[in-house]
């Protein structure tokens, strides 16, 4: 290694990586698209900052009152909330901007200490971690104001708690990455993960449900959970604070010691994974998928029936190409658990409302008195929201297939039409399933509301497709099935998607409210029909120009969708 006197130190290597990230960001601003992405990301970051500041006020003031009143144990509840947010955010929400896989840096002569430190730095700068650290800091201030003598102890406990969370989050991601290295396991676990997230939504309603039925059962259930919760890090940190508030530093120190043991264990487990990565562990899919080679057989067998796929669609009134694209979309959906799960999310919403204590019995509640009637339109509105995932980034899972769509002798409008028809079918299926479930749980909703909701869905779907087609072509973003840590939708897509949904659902809600105020519920039907016609005009306008748009954006489409991750 001529000319290399010594490998740069840890600090210098981290500074170099920091400079690399800065240059990547700076260079991304060279074109208009990059600048627009930066502006929209900035707006989303500002919204996130609002949540962080709001949370800080909540955690700071709540910690102040708990400490002042001596409710040390309740502090554990706050720590549980922060810990869950810290752990779930990086997996579930990720950031809008480009993800940078720092393990790529291993090709350089990076010291293990630098690699380890970089892993922690990345973990610390994750938005979830930044928010959580800020909230912990505010809790520290809140407790310090309430009980100034507790400030040093609180700082030590919360610092240890933050370190535990940091190591745990990094350790979890590093191990999940190993488990999810295979496509199949990744998708299965992704499916289970989303089911779990949905199941969490039911915890509150189910507890309340059982609480109403049997308070005794509820109490015993919580009492069983309490010792378990106390033995876990947030519980231990909470107890360390609780005993500290009671000036019982022997027990407080014991709790802190156990918290430190957790921290050390997570640190060690993280180290195990990082050492494996540092030594060049290869988790790539291809190594496992390498096929067994067969000897060449020049003889060509006569065609067999197995070559003809069983599934086949011929949609009347549309071109063959649109039917084929529709068929392809159906195959893709059938092979993606996560895509299929989207189909059932509105059903979860209906079930959630069914478990809600605000059932029709609460006659004094102005809104929920009409729940059985309004559940159907609410679930339909949710269906529209879910559509944005697909309508506004239609080519997300196309990958290099987009090249075929661009070179095949088929107008791009036929491609978009096939995709839109599939979206329409998916939404219609969702709406029908919702109607069946609502009818089963609450009785059939009034026919007028059903018709109005279906028309609302029609207008919303057409409008979503009209705008979504253009955004899909102009701001495509490649997504992988079952991969969580990846670039989400493009900033522009998120921005326009949000605004469109606010307008569409807002207008729909306004129509329902106005019809109700005017005591003319039937008015919703002609209004939605007019909306649907207007949306159709917009859709035809958009579709007529999609070929030209696709041609002018073909470089963007192929560059974004065909890039190697």
């Amino acid at each position, binding site marked *: 290694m001529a000319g290399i006197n010594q490998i740069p130190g840890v600090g210098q290597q981290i500074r170099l990586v920091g400079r690399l990230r800065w240059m990547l960001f700076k260079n991304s601003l060279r074109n208009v698209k990059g600048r627009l992405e930066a502006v929209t990301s900035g707006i989303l970051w500002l919204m996130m900052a609002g949540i962080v500041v709001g949370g800080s006020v909540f955690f700071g003031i709540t910690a102040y009152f708990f400490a002042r009143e001596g409710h040390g144990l309740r502090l554990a509840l706050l720590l549980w909330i922060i810990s869950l947010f810290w752990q779930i955010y990086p997996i579930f929400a990720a950031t809008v901007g480009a993800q940078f896989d720092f393990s790529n840096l291993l090709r350089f002569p990076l010291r293990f200490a630098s690699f380890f430190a970089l892993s922690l730095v990345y973990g610390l700068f994750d938005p979830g971690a930044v928010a959580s650290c800020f909230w912990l800091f505010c809790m520290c201030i809140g407790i310090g104001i309430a009980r100034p003598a507790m400030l040093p102890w609180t700082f030590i406990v919360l610092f240890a708690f933050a370190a535990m969370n940091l190591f745990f989050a990094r350790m979890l991601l590093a191990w999940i990455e190993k488990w999810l290295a295979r496509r199949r396991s990744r998708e299965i676990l992704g499916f289970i993960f989303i089911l779990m997230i949905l199941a969490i939504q039911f915890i509150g309603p189910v507890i309340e449900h059982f609480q109403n039925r049997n308070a005794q059962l509820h109490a015993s259930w919580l009492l069983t959970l309490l010792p378990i919760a106390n033995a876990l890090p947030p519980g231990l940190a909470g107890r360390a604070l609780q005993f500290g508030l009671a000036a019982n530093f022997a027990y407080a120190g014991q709790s802190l010691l156990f918290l430190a043991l957790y921290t050390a264990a997570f640190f060690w487990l993280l180290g195990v994974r990082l050492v494996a990565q540092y030594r060049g562990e290869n988790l790539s899919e291809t190594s496992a998928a390498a096929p067994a080679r067969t000897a060449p057989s020049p003889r060509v*067998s006569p065609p067999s029936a197995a070559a003809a*796929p069983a599934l086949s669609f011929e949609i009347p009134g549309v071109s063959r190409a649109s039917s084929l694209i529709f068929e392809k979309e159906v195959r893709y959906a059938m092979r993606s658990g996560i895509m299929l799960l989207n189909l059932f999310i509105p059903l979860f919403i209906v079930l959630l409302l069914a478990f809600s204590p605000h059932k029709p019995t609460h006659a004094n509640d102005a809104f929920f008195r009409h729940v059985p009637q309004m559940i159907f339109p609410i679930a339909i509105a949710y269906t529209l929201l879910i559509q944005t995932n697909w309508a506004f980034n239609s080519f997300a899972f196309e990958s290099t297939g987009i090249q*075929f769509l661009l070179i095949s002798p088929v107008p791009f409008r036929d491609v978009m039409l096939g995709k839109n028809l599939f979206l329409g079918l998916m939404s219609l299926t969702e709406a029908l399933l919702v109607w069946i479930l609502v009818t089963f749980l609450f009785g059939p909703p009034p026919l007028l509301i059903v018709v109005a909701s279906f028309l609302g869905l029609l207008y919303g779907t057409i409008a979503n497709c009209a705008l979504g087609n253009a955004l899909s072509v102009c701001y495509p973003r490649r997504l992988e099935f079952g991969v969580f840590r990846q670039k989400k939708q493009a900033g522009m897509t998120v921005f326009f998607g949000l605004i469109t949904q606010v307008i569409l659902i807002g207008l729909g809600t306004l129509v329902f409210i106005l019809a109700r105020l005017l005591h003319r519920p039937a008015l919703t039907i002609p209004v939605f029909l007019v909306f649907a016609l207007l949306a159709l005009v917009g859709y035809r306008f958009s579709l007529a120009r999609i070929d030209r748009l696709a041609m002018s954006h073909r470089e963007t489409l192929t560059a974004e969708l065909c890039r190697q991750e």
Partner: protein
Amino acid sequence: MEVKSNIGVVPEGLALFGRLTASEYLNFVGRMYGLDRATAAQRTQELLEFMQLADRPKTLITDYSHGMQKKLAMAAAVIHGPKILFLDEPFEGVDAIAATTLKAMLQRMIARGATIFLTSHVLEIVERLCSHVAIISKGQLVAQGSLEELRAGIEARQGVTASGDGKLTLEQIFLDIVGGSRETDRELTWLG
């Protein structure tokens, strides 16, 4: 659209839909090019057998190795019987068995009158497969013609013959045309 119907393309990214099986993909491509259902199914089966891809009917394309994906992309490019074929680095990353299969198919197509454009940085392959060569340097077409024409042009200009059998190789022709030989004279003083 008419031009697109008569050409087949294997781009760098291979233009595959990873979530389809090879059979589904070839059927889809065939029908997008206007083949009827029965013809698409028949050609799909023939191509799968020819490319030795028929033994894994349920495997998704995304789980194929690079060589298998390349063979499939090649099969998709020819399913509609194009008159002109554009191939971007068709043999890059392909093992020897797959390369032999692909070359055999290309030679049969040429024998039946098809025109094939292929790009490659491996000049030995170009020399072996192509009747005509075009050299692009810095985005400009700097030379074109049959191998013999190019060779004759350089020999006439310089009066040299270089390789053992007395003929200039394509690599020598290429270096002569783009002036790459000058680079070899340079030296990195710090490289051990």
